[in-house]
């Protein structure tokens, strides 16, 4: 598997499939364009449709390193780009008994590289795949910083100067839409909305992820999650991740077990479980 394979849309789909990720054509197109154009790709979709998995599969397909930045509330440059190793600085200062000047103190020796800097400084032949996960959890200030980062692929560390990317990383961003992202950030990215897969595709996904799973189990589970998603009255719908775990549960328990008894695999809200049981949503599956 190489980067060259991603030069066509079909090649991108095949490369992802080789990693056990069955992408539909629109997603393969989006990934192909992100690689060919070197533009970041923003992935949105319901929880558990496999947004993060795309990055893992892409990195696997290219044979590149996956660098992941998990965003969280309050994330700032020191979490994302670099920080100084203060404990070691203090130790070094004491050991030198004041004989260290500021230049030595803020040199590479005491620099801690965080994911974004790591992505810029990777010395491999291949571009790294940089996954910026759940960007909607970060705040506006960080989003503004990211905007700059994604246009220049360079960061400035006051004590060291500007560091530019040796090779532009392939960047994927995911968002759960807990808030709207800034327009400027969106405009910098290609966009793809990952939908729930069709039943045929979902069966294929189960088969790909759990080799040797009996067809009947895959069909049962896919039918069941399909019914839950269509039910329309649940707080949280099961994602593809839940489908796979459910199939694994049936594989362990044997196919005879009633789906309602294992509902906790797919639904995590008490009211949802109750509702499904009361209304017999899964009858006959």
């Amino acid at each position, binding site marked *: 598997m190489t980067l060259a394979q991603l030069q066509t*849309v079909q090649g991108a789909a095949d490369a992802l499939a080789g990693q056990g990720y069955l992408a539909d*054509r*629109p997603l393969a*197109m*989006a990934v*192909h*364009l992100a690689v*060919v*154009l070197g*533009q970041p*790709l*923003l992935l*949105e979709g319901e929880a558990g449709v496999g947004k993060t998995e795309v990055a893992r599969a892409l990195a696997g397909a290219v044979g590149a390193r996956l660098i992941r930045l998990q965003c*969280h*509330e*309050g994330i*700032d440059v020191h979490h994302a780009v670099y920080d*100084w190793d*203060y*404990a070691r*600085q*203090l130790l070094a*200062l*004491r050991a*030198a*008994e*004041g004989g*260290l*000047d*500021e230049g030595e*103190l803020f040199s590479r020796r005491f620099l801690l590289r965080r994911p974004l800097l790591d992505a810029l400084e990777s010395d491999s032949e291949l571009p790294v795949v940089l996954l910026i996960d759940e960007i909607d959890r970060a*705040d*506006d200030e960080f989003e503004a910083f990211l905007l700059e980062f994604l246009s220049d692929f360079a960061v400035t560390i006051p004590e060291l100067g500007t560091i530019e990317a040796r090779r532009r990383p392939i960047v994927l961003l995911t968002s*759960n*839409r*807990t*808030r*709207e992202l800034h*327009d400027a950030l*969106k*405009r910098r*990215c*290609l*966009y*793809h*909305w990952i939908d729930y897969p069709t039943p045929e595709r979902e069966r294929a996904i189960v088969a790909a992820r759990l080799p040797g799973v009996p067809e009947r189990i895959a069909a049962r589970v896919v039918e069941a999650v399909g019914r839950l998603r269509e039910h329309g*009255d*649940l*707080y*949280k719908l099961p994602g593809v991740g839940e489908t796979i775990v459910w199939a694994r549960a049936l594989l362990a328990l044997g196919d005879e077990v009633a789906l309602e008894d294992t509902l906790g695999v797919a639904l995590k809200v008490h*009211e949802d479980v109750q509702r499904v049981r009361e209304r017999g949503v899964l009858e006959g599956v």
Partner: protein
Amino acid sequence: MSRLGELARALRAQGTRVGVGELLGAVRCLDAVDCSSRDDVRLALRAALCSSQADLERFDLAFGIVYGVERAAAERDDPLAPLGQVERAVLPRVGIVDPRGGEARPDAEAVPAAWSDIEILREKDFARYTEEEMALARELIARLARRHPTRMSRRTRATRRRAELPDLRRTVQASLRTGGEPLRRRWREPTRRPRQLVLVCDVSGSMAPYARMLLQYMHASVAARRRVEAFAFGTRLTRITQELAGRDHDLALERAMAAVTDFSGGTRIGAAIAELNRAHGRRIGRGAVIVILSDGWDRGDPAQLDAEMARLRRAAHRLVWLNPLAAHPDYQPLARGMQAAVPHTDRLLAGNSLASIEQLAQLLEEM
């Protein structure tokens, strides 16, 4: 290439933002794919030109119009689609009577003759406001809307005080001056951020006298802050955050009213809250302050309202209910809807006058 321009026009006519940057991106995308395949062109352009889920549907419609083939289907879906923006603007929207009485007023700012004008307004019920009084109150409402709930942030800032968190960076720098001994310690303290505020306004018939002023408050809140979500409901829920955004007051209210299709109709609060919980659960997130503005006259199922309010309460930091009827000193929550909802609310306020909005602002600030 000219067709790309047409496509951009068709997208813009539907409200999608397409700038020069997007167009350049689209051209680069077209270079990268096999242009003889209609589907590839469609997918490539879609990735370049869309930036939200709502855009996807608009794009498919616009693509059908411009690149043909599915023209028939597009026309069936939306008879207005082939019209340009100008033609659309001429079409009548929804039959809303101009509340200002039809006569277009010049944009003269109403200036209070004396401060006491506002003082008198403070206690006056919104339902008895005249047009002039509404305009007078606008400035005050905007000021009240700037007072908002906050929460602790995980971001910190340097402080001179002795605090909980050591500031290692500044401590190291300070120790350079004392021969490497960290004699002077430095500290950081957490900052505060605006807490998410969710405003849900009942615009059914019985709330009509209040809805306009409350929408004004919602508009001012959305305009003043970043983390506000606004919804309106009668029989169904509509998100109006984007419609209310922007500085132009009248335009924002007009957009919001056009978006809400069930103005001055019946009420099904339970169904509206259910929709809020399901379709917008993520957007509201956990830890928000949720303010519901409604008189609680509900024609829906009280059991549903009870269950949905319980769910909403669990996700919220605080749940406040504003009921104009509660202004009456003898008010008892007897309406079925209120009876179901009150056990799940933290505070019940009146929301019928400037004074009560001020009370709300005070409450929000303390949260």
